């Protein structure tokens, strides 16, 4: 996969992306999809990856986020409180000053950000595929359509991949990093394009709409409509039928598009980053997801483990030292009294708390290590990001996080 490595007679200049690292992986791709269970730092990981590529590689990079909570806006310091606004469906360039404020240097490339507005994207899709203005307007006005596109989150799945395709097809960016929607099941969005085209090519759908359209209640469909009328009410049923009939007019365009989206996901220029923490449930989900990618022959590029406790918590010597300190805090405090000049009993309490805390975190760190061993699927790159003691809320934080992922 990827670019040919450095030739023997071509000494890699310092700072050139190394193979077998996230740096090298990202440098050789056009699309990076950050996915995995919820709450593990996907959005931040995606933003950090994009920021690093823009800053170091000199690429024009777009980070596309989907989350309704608008977390990317937070991470990029575009809003103050998480009720983000101002990002919209259109792409915005992150000003170079944001990088300069963080590092003192301008980025080599450009960083752009966009947020997915589901309703707006659906409307754009309808405008593109509708055969004529009348159909377009009728779809946009159909109550069922308005409900699906605006209200129900599942439609995020498809639209996210569709928007990615559209942005990539514009050819404006060297690299697009996508933060995937928080789906009920992490792999839902992978199947969304296929589900969409299945839906439109379904025989059942055609039967349903054809019989309704003709209103010649043939023997096959009459019982269905009798019962359905009773359950749903005639108006609602009419809305459903209209919705299906109208959508069918966009059938060819939709299916073609969904297939193109599916192809793009498995293209060699695309790679997937599975993000997880080392808590039991996320690890199980991440492993499941990694396997699902492999089974679908989709390129699993890296697993990024977030919020990992420092390894020193697992150090045996440090552990025994902590036990020693816990048990002998009093005498150690007495002997430190000369240099510290504080009440030895207070010092002893502090030392004991230090030791207890270390042993406590040691238990968690070992639990995490066991979880890491559970990850059986091996990607090209396994990156591990330490637990940052402060929140990542600005460019400086993103680049600090990015630097630990990169190496």
């Amino acid at each position, binding site marked *: 996969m990827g670019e040919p490595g450095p030739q023997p007679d071509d000494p890699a200049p310092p700072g050139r992306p190394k193979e077998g690292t996230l740096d090298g992986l990202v440098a050789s791709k056009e699309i990076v999809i950050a996915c995995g*269970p919820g709450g593990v730092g996907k959005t931040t990981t995606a933003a950090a990856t994009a920021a690093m590529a823009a800053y170091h590689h000199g690429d024009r990079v777009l980070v596309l986020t989907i989350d309704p909570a608008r977390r990317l806006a937070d991470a990029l310091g575009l809003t103050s409180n998480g009720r983000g606004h101002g990002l919209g469906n259109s792409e915005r360039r992150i000003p170079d000053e944001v990088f300069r404020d963080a590092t003192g240097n301008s980025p080599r490339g450009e960083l752009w950000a966009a947020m997915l507005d589901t309703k707006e994207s659906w409307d754009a899709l309808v405008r593109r595929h509708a055969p004529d203005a009348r159909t377009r307007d009728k779809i946009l006005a159909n109550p069922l359509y308005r409900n*699906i596109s605006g209200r129900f989150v599942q439609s995020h799945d498809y639209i996210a991949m569709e928007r990615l395709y559209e942005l990539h097809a514009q050819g404006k960016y060297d690299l697009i990093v996508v933060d995937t929607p928080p789906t009920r099941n992490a792999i839902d969005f992978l199947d969304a394009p296929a589900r969409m085209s299945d839906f439109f090519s379904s025989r059942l759908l055609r039967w349903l709409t054809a019989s309704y359209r003709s209103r010649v209640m043939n023997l096959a469909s009459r019982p269905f409509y009798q019962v359905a009328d009773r359950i749903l*009410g005639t108006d*609602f049923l009419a809305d459903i039928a209209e919705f299906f009939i109208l959508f069918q007019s966009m059938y060819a365009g939709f299916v073609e598009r969904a297939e193109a989206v599916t192809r793009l996901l498995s293209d060699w220029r695309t790679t997937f980053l599975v993000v997880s923490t080392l808590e039991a449930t996320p690890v199980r989900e991440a492993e499941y997801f990694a396997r699902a990618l492999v089974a679908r022959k989709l390129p699993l590029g890296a697993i990024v483990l977030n919020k990992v406790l420092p390894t020193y918590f697992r150090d045996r010597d440090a552990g025994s030292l902590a036990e020693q300190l816990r048990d002998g805090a009093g005498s150690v405090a007495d002997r430190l009294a000369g240099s510290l000049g504080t009440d030895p009993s207070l010092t002893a309490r*502090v030392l004991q708390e230090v030791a207890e805390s270390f042993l406590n*975190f040691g238990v968690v760190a070992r639990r995490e290590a066991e979880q890491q061993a559970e990850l059986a699927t091996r990607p090209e790159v396994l990156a591990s990001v330490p637990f940052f003691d402060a929140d990542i809320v600005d460019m400086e934080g993103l680049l600090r996080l990015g630097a630990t992922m990169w190496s």
Partner: protein
Amino acid sequence: MADARPLPLLDRRLLFVTGKGGTGKTTVAAALAQLAAGRGKHVLACEVDAKGDLAALFEAAPTDFAGREVEPGVVVMSMDTEASLREYLKLQLRIPVATRLGPLARALDFVAAAAPGVREILTVGKLCYEVRERNYDLVVVDAAATGHIVSQLAAPQAINDLVKVGLIRSQTDWMLEILSDPRRTGLVAVTTPEEMPVNETLELAGRVRAETTVELSAVVVNRVLPELFGLHEEEVFDDVYAHAEELSKLLGGDSGPLLEGARLAVTMRRTRAGHLQRLREGLVSDAESAGAMTPPVLYVPYLFSRAHGLRSMRQVAAALGEELGL
């Protein structure tokens, strides 16, 4: 509606437990079910996303739509909208689906898949049905994550707006009655004292109020780190930190990791304390702006424990029990 004292959480009939991914929503749902069962209640715990995690917390094999008692008083079931539709047709319309109208069931399921609101109503409808029939004292739902819960809870209203007449309309009416009654139905939001989970929880509080008829009955803050140092102790620690070499000599080994570890614990706790404060203040101002009562905030400590399943869930249940004054 605004009583002076809030109704005890477990005295309600239907509790939806939501939370951002990774906050421990499923664990809290299981713990609430177990607490209620421990007080003699007959509890149905329902997992909405059918991953099998809820049953696993009771160290039980995955459950299905019919449900199974996993420990005395706790029946765990997994939501299955197709099965829910079949049950609905059978019980409400007296249509024996499996035998006579197979194609109809398929067609309707298809409609459900195409118009996602239908799927949500089949989920919420089944849960409300169990409440209406009084099959259990309490139904605890390991519900959709924060990003999805509002559309799930708002589905009956949404359908009500769409469908003006017909059977569905009369169905959503009684569901809305149950969902809108804060003595029967409550929402529990699980969060952790971290930036994004707190943001989402505050956002959720506003949206639940604006877009649904369900009351936010409690906020559970999971994984609260203990305070490492008391008053004046941190200054002593700074002093010790400055004498790391001497401490290493006394101990006969490198004290660096111990001191770094303590420093990390202190800063982590401090960052989180700020988010906790923001959560409390945000909940108060949100409630005040609507003239409502601030939902109680329940704290569950970070577990320095090696266990994952039943054992750690019991620890969470014990902590929640204490917070609820049980």
